[in-house]
């Protein structure tokens, strides 16, 4: 699934300082019934965003007009639980291109990278600084600079580097995915398969 290239993103952000946000919250199981990748953004955080009668919960961050932007800043252990890529799709479809957290669950992080949402891992202290910046100005802009692997709070100039391996970085910068890579390895793979015992 090809996606838009990611280089430098300057945007305000939505703060969600809750730990262990699991994939069942990101997208509850009852919304996993589609057979196409469409419409998941409406159900992002469905049960935190809407009451059971469908009305919006005004105190939930995504329903708060103060906030805007393409960045979601979450608490620790973001995206734990199920492997459902629908969670990452919902984030993308809602309009996010980047999630910042001090710790990501492994499968969720891979899913994000595979569909063009950049997971930016920062230290606990830097996460706190970002939350503080948004608290003092809900429109505070954050720069996520993939080529330099840096995240910068523009109002204060504070910044931190984030890790990403060179291969994945190249994919994100170019909008490539792993299938493009693996497709060029067919002969090597066939030869390897011959050697398998079972």
């Amino acid at each position: 699934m090809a996606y838009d290239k990611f280089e430098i993103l300057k945007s305000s952000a939505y703060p969600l300082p809750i730990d262990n946000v699991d994939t069942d919250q990101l997208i509850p199981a009852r919304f996993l019934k589609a057979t196409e990748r469409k419409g998941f953004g409406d159900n992002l955080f469905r049960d935190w965003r809407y009451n059971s009668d469908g009305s919006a919960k005004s105190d939930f961050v995504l329903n708060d007009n103060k906030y805007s932007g393409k960045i979601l800043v979450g608490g620790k252990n973001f995206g734990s639980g199920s492997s459902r890529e629908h969670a990452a799709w919902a984030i993308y479809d809602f309009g996010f291109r980047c999630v910042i957290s001090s710790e990501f669950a492994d499968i969720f992080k891979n899913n994000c990278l595979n569909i063009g949402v950049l997971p930016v891992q920062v230290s606990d202290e830097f996460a706190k600084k970002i939350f503080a910046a948004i608290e003092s100005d809900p429109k505070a802009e954050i720069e996520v600079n993939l080529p330099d692997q840096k995240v910068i709070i523009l109002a204060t100039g504070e910044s931190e580097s984030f890790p990403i391996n060179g291969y994945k970085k190249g994919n994100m910068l170019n909008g490539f995915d792993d299938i493009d890579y693996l497709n060029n390895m067919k002969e090597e793979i066939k030869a390897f398969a011959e050697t398998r015992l079972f």
Partner: protein
Amino acid sequence: MGNTLFDKVWDSHLVRKVNDGPDVIFIDRHLVHEVTSPVAFLGLKNRGISVMFPEKTFAVADHNTPTINQHLPVTNIESANQLDTLERNTNEFGISHWGLGHAKNGVVHVVAPENGVIVPGATVVCGDSHTSTHGAFGAIAFGIGTSEVEMVLASQNIMQAKPKKMRINVNGELSNSVTPKDVALYIISQLSTSGATGYFVEYAGDVFEKMTMEGRMTVCNLSIEMGARGGMIAPDQATFDYVQGKEFAPKGKDWDKAMEYWKTLKTDDDAVFDKELTFSASDIDPMITYGTNPGMGIGLTKDVPNVEDTKEGKETFGKSLEYMDFKEGESMIGKTIDYVFLGSCTNGRIEDFRAFASIIKGKKKADNVTAWLVPGSHIVEAQIKEEGILEILTDAGFELRQPGCSACLAMNDDKIPAGKYSVSTSNRNFEGRQGPGSRTLLASPLVAAAAAVTGKVTDPREI
């Protein structure tokens, strides 16, 4: 320096190392189900590529399937569409499909081992996080996302950075009524739900050596709940005995050759782990969870902890207790419950039904309890009948449902209503996991059985 079991299996599947990037790893067995595969198949079609090794992929319908009247058409239109889509896609790409009504149907992680699809030393993936179950066989097994499902269908390979390695040792004798589920919930409560993030775990020590394959599957299944990519246990005679003779297991000369290799699959004495933890079996009690992640577990007879005594952040902990309507310092014993769910890829195997039956035998289901007893597969269902367990269940006022994931994730009609409490043998107690507003207490089949006959949280040792 020696190698770990994990290194041995991983390295033997390494097709290419990408410079400053992940490893390209060959996948021996790919399991597919109806929920996470449609978009992957669509992707293949859009790119105009075929499935590279269709015989290495096995498709099962389970997440969306009803657990009653499976002979009737599925009434939920979207679920029916997903089931049909799986059938169409597997036909089109030449993949075997154990759909609704098929003799081999059931929860994907129950049926794959049961039919010999899983063997030691294999790499196994599935678009489902509890793929970690299959580590019980000394396989490297982990959950993947839909893009990766497409990747494996297209190339039989996956690109993954090699995780760090952790060994968790549990030694000694487990006390009465302490089951593999309790061992796993105990470990998760000690590590928290992110304590093993970035690691692949090997379970070692005499507790796991003495465990049955069913028990090992329960433990490895729950590895993901502490954030681990997966967990594995070195194969031994119990493993080989379980696999031998199963339909898809190697036969004859192939078996002998495989056995020769499988016997080498253990961690070398001088191998080093990035992290090593050791627990004592005697510290483990029957467990129950009180909160909204599987790390929020305690010994059944203990009180709900104060926030200072947990690994949770204050806000997160408070939100969790509010959702459950529990208070710090409260006793879990005696809490009234409404539902009991026995089933799932964690505890839907024959041993789990035997354990449940051992408690409820000669008693009656409590009037305030709705019980959903859902076998993991038709094969388990048949065993339940053959062993006379069905009679015990029926005499006590219980009904047996048909196999599927059921209330584990509540994608079908088996939803726990808002505000109700369910003692569940499944694996996740997240908000709304078992239905919007549902409140889940994770526990073993023994604890679930004790709750089913008393209508409240009860110590199975007191029954």
